[in-house]
């Protein structure tokens, strides 16, 4: 690894200006490359976009930093000459979090004062918002990626633009699969921070010590194995939004640190004597009952009060029956186009089953059912037999669409492990039981079990990992 250079700008003002902090103030990814296309340095926006630190990538060929499709399909850098103008093109990159991101890349030669070619300037813009906006323009009854026309969703559409404009912390609650992540993204995109980063952290995915460095960063030598300083997610989310999902799983010691941040907007990286001010809006989400957790002393009451400034509750799908048909049609169109199939609609029989089902897994489950059906269907209409088998294996008592919510809720237990609701099990326990039952039924075959549940294989794998179920 090469040492990172710390150049200065002279002649611009009376004193020299440090180049790197100057570059960091520019909100698009900027990378300076040598003539042999190796990374000389890059700014913080590029660190956020790629997920890699500049200390580690200094001197590395740029294709390993950017990881764009253009890098291996005809890199234009060798054809850029000192007198070339800017070259701009759309591409996609894969970042450290393994996400594929659409970007616009602009390349320019860098020449010295005598006109000699010394390197390249690479500007990389994240164009996800632009791409999504284009596809969303024609979509009615939607807000961002959220779809629905029920009164509950209409109310949400009215209040989100208003609360997005403030900087107050937001707490999103709702059952699993109701769209908490989508709502958080919409809030960010509607806010004045839309051009800043949107950083997501799953508080339940990492052990406490790792989560602390992930959130707040650490100084080199702060602990065994801290071979380099690392900025935390709070730092990376500067001027943007930090989305803390599964906030109910945040360990108590970190709840104190989060509370401190919410009070004074200052973070203390691990092992660093200095503290840093960051301008970050917090959006938190959970499917847990935080009030109950406070009573059980598993969640700090003062943090709940601090986060609960604006609370958005996403209704479960069984309470927004009007949206089921809309969502079914939306996902059918999406998957049919994605899988290049000419499926036009659901048959009346299939539709009857789908409209009566209570969707305990909410929109995520509905989406998985449609994805499964589109995969299975070889005709132009989805029939009953294209639907996941588990929709039929359960007894359906709810023949009347006019059933009230309580009745609909009661009917859920026909799809869940026997007596689950009677035993007053929470959603996680019920879901875990559903998975185990499906695995038993499928004789341990995960693909078959996933089909029983109407999930994709990766969803089943993720859930099994989440609940610690081994096959």
């Amino acid at each position, binding site marked *: *690894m*090469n040492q990172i250079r710390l150049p200065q700008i002279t002649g611009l003002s009376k004193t020299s200006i440090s180049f790197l902090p100057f570059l960091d103030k520019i909100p698009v990814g900027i990378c300076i490359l040598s003539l042999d296309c190796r990374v000389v340095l890059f700014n913080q926006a590029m660190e956020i976009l790629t997920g890699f630190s500049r200390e*580690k*990538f200094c*001197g*590395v060929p740029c*294709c*390993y930093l950017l*990881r764009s*499709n253009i*890098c*291996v*399909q005809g890199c234009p850098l060798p054809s850029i000459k000192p007198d070339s103008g800017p070259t701009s093109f759309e591409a996609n*990159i*894969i970042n*450290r*979090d*393994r*996400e*594929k991101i659409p970007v616009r890349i602009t390349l320019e030669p860098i020449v010295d004062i005598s006109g000699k070619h010394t390197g390249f300037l690479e500007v990389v813009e994240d164009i996800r918002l632009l791409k999504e906006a284009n596809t969303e323009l024609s979509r009615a009854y939607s807000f961002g990626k959220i779809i629905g026309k029920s009164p509950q969703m209409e109310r949400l559409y009215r209040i989100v633009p208003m609360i997005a404009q403030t900087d107050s912390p937001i707490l999103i609650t709702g059952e699993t699969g109701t769209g908490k992540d989508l709502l958080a993204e919409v809030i960010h995109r509607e806010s004045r921070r839309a051009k800043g980063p949107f950083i997501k952290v799953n508080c339940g995915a990492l052990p406490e010590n790792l989560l602390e460095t992930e959130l707040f960063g650490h100084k080199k030598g702060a602990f065994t194995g801290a071979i380099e300083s690392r900025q935390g997610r709070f730092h990376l989310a500067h001027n943007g939004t930090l989305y803390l999902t599964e906030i109910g799983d945040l360990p108590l010691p970190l709840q104190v640190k989060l509370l401190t941040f919410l009070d004074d907007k200052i973070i203390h990286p691990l092992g660093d004597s200095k503290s840093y001010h960051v301008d970050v809006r917090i959006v938190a989400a959970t499917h847990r009952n935080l009030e109950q957790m406070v009573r059980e002393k598993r969640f700090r009451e003062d943090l709940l009060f601090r986060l609960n400034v604006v609370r958005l509750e996403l209704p479960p799908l069984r309470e927004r029956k009007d949206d089921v048909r809309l969502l079914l049609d939306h996902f059918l169109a999406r998957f049919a186009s994605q899988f290049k199939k000419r499926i036009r609609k659901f048959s009346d029989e299939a539709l009857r089953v789908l409209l009566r089902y209570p969707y305990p897994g909410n929109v995520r489950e509905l989406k998985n059912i449609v994805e499964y059906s589109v995969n299975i269907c070889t005709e132009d209409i989805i029939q009953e037999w294209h639907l996941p088998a588990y929709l039929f294996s359960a007894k359906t008592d709810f023949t009347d669409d006019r059933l009230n919510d309580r009745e609909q809720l009661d009917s859920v237990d026909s799809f869940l492990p026997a007596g689950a609701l009677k035993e007053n099990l929470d959603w996680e326990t019920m879901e875990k039981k559903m998975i185990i039952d499906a695995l038993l039924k499928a004789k341990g075959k*995960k693909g078959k079990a996933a089909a029983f549940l109407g999930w994709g*294989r*990766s969803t089943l*794998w*993720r859930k099994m990992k989440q609940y610690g179920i081994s096959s």
Partner: protein
Amino acid sequence: MPKKILIPLYKDSLAPRFDLATEVLIGLVGESHNVEEKRVVVLPEASPEEVCNLIFTEGIDVVICCAIEKEYYDYLVWKKIQVFDSVVGSVDRVLRAFEKGELSSGDIIMDY
């Protein structure tokens, strides 16, 4: 039982992208943990599905690559394949690090 290893290639280095590699190196990890019987397989086209298919038909146990999309990473890990990703470097040096048991995801192993 000897393990089989697969590395997507770009010239003599790891391919920057798993989904765009058109050549892969397949080798056998011997009892001394050295990679033997190395061969290069040229793919008809760059396709992540094609590479995944090759991984299963060849009975690969370990994949060393650079950028890989979450979808394929999760799928391979779910299929109990050990994946070292975000690795940068020449194939020889990466293999040497692997043979010594010193390789981890995110390693940059190259001469400057």
